[in-house]
């Protein structure tokens, strides 16, 4: 402890540079993770934060809710599958809307915007299936023409008490609750009752004979696992049942977004590995005469190796604090792109960074373990 900290204290500039480098890398990793989750959240948050554990798509839709329609025959067939507890309709569609009442007055009354409506069963046996999982404010829609809106858009005329008008000439929907991260396709999103959703569809297409749900929201019966339910549902022809997590991960676009951002994160981790590894190794080589001396006067191998590990840990921890502070300072400016500061995420990244530091310092540790105390007797510069 004494050794590790004294050395850092006496070589402040070097260690501060390393801490800053690690801090920057930690910040970049946090930023990329935030960007990834923010983007995915804005694209598919509605699906991720709805209550149905299983979602059934039309096979033609290629796991895209926008292109999916479940006809009446298939709905009936799905309801018969063993293991199904409750099953309900879930509709998704984009509408042009205007603000009849906007308390924030951010949006002019006649300005048209696109909003996504999700219609789920508010009443009946499947009541609440497909609703937002958690509300940050207000309450769930109790009946017709009430909505839970995406919290991210509250200042754009989607706050509690605001009234959204379905164009042209449709219903007036009042926002009664807010939920975080329920956007779909980066648009303002409203969760409404199936009846509200169906009425809105009919405004746009008065001749439609029946309004079909996009997907079916399913909950397993007591004692049935999600995996078993998905397998059972797959036997129905023409459908693709997916668990909620799979529906999110396999949604078109999400996979490619997360893949490219994960690649960037991977490169940052490799960079961190090299920066820490090379720095600690150079430091170890530079002080090999001191390390040899310490071995010669009775320091155990493990003492010196632990000193190195301790130093690495201290430096990485300092870097994590620096990176976390940078992220906390900058994140308020990034809320619009869905990036936010998350302490739990910082702790996870911090723990990962410490492991990266340990792995990075492995080369230096091996070098320390190989030091021969007898070399202390050899005049400097003539190490055998």
């Amino acid at each position, binding site marked *: 402890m*004494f*050794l590790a900290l*004294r*050395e850092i204290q*006496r*070589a402040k500039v070097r260690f501060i540079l390393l801490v800053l480098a690690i801090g920057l890398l930690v910040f970049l990793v946090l930023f990329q993770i935030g960007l990834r989750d923010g983007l995915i959240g804005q694209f598919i948050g509605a699906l991720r934060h709805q209550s149905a554990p299983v979602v059934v798509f039309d096979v033609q839709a290629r796991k895209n809710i926008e292109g999916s329609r479940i006809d009446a025959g298939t709905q009936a067939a799905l309801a018969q599958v063993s293991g199904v507890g409750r099953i309900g309709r879930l509709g998704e569609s984009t509408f042009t809307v205007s603000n009849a009442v906007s308390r924030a007055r951010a949006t002019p009354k006649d300005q048209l915007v696109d909003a996504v409506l999700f219609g789920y069963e508010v009443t009946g046996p499947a009541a609440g299936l497909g609703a937002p999982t958690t509300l940050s404010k207000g309450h769930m829609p109790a009946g017709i023409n009430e909505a839970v809106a995406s919290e991210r858009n509250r200042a754009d005329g989607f706050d509690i008490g605001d009234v959204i008008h379905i164009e042209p000439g449709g219903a007036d929907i009042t926002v009664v609750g807010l939920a975080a991260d329920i956007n779909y396709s980066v648009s303002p999103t409203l969760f409404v009752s199936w009846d509200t959703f169906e009425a809105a569809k009919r405004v746009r297409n008065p001749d439609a004979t029946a309004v079909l749900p996009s997907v079916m929201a399913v909950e397993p019966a007591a004692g049935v696992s999600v995996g078993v339910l998905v397998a059972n549902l797959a036997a129905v022809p023409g459908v693709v049942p997916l668990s909620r997590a799979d529906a999110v991960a396999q949604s078109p676009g999400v996979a490619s977004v997360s893949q490219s951002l994960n690649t960037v994160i991977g490169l940052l981790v490799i960079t961190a590995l090299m920066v820490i590894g090379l720095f600690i190794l150079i430091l170890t080589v530079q*002080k090999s*005469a*001191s390390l*040899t*001396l*310490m*071995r*010669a*006067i*009775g*320091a*155990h191998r493990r*003492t010196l190796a632990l000193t190195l590990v301790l130093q690495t840990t201290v430096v990485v921890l300092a870097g994590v604090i620096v990176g976390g502070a940078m992220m906390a300072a900058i994140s308020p400016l990034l809320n619009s792109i869905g990036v936010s500061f998350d302490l739990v995420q910082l702790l996870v990244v911090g723990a990962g960074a410490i492991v990266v530091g340990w792995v990075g310092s492995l080369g230096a540790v091996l070098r320390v373990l190989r030091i021969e*105390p*007898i070399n*202390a*007797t*050899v*005049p*400097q510069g003539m190490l055998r």
Partner: protein
Amino acid sequence: MTSTAMNAAAGTAPALEMHEVTKVYGEGENAITALASATISIGSNEMVALVGPSGSGKTTLLSIAGGLLAPTSGQVIVGGRDISHASPTELTEVRRNTVGFVFQSVNLVPFLTARENLLLVDELRGSRGKQSKARADRLLDELGLSKRLHNLPSQLSGGERQRVAIGRALMNEPALVLFDEPTSALDTQLGEQVMELIQSEVKGRGTAAIIITHDSRMTHWCDRTVRILDGRLQSDELATAG
């Protein structure tokens, strides 16, 4: 009177006993016998000068005596403990607790102050605190370094550095202190001063010491001089101490 007889008279166990110690470096055609059947006994309060030409095996003998090197054959007893067949970990313990070293080259950790270089010894032994600090300060004071406690080695002169090294070697209260050419980097006057310090510190503590030197003018500080040539100990003569 042999040294063994002298020790017997003093009633204390020798600080170092070597019996027929041989060290061979390398194998086959390349084998070099650096030390050949060396037998020596050094009393608990004895200061011995070890002299010999370059390559004669002085450092090798010192390294074996200090537990830095395992002998090829023979018996080595340091501070009453037989280390002839000790494991590397046991040798580390011997170096930490029983012997003190002043090496020919690097003796101080550059990022530690004079005082911290001494405290490091106790730190490695798992003891720290007031007692260690008091002992380090007393040693440095005896060595005339009381104003240099908080200087880094780079801020000290060659003579001062050598004195800190002596303090560091004595910090673990060793039974035997081993000096490899402690004055070779210093001019004659400084060398004399350092030898005088070594003598007063070693004698004042009742510790044994082996001092390797090239310089025959330095041997008079020691109780006796042992000569080595081609790995063989030559003569064992009593000197008239300082």
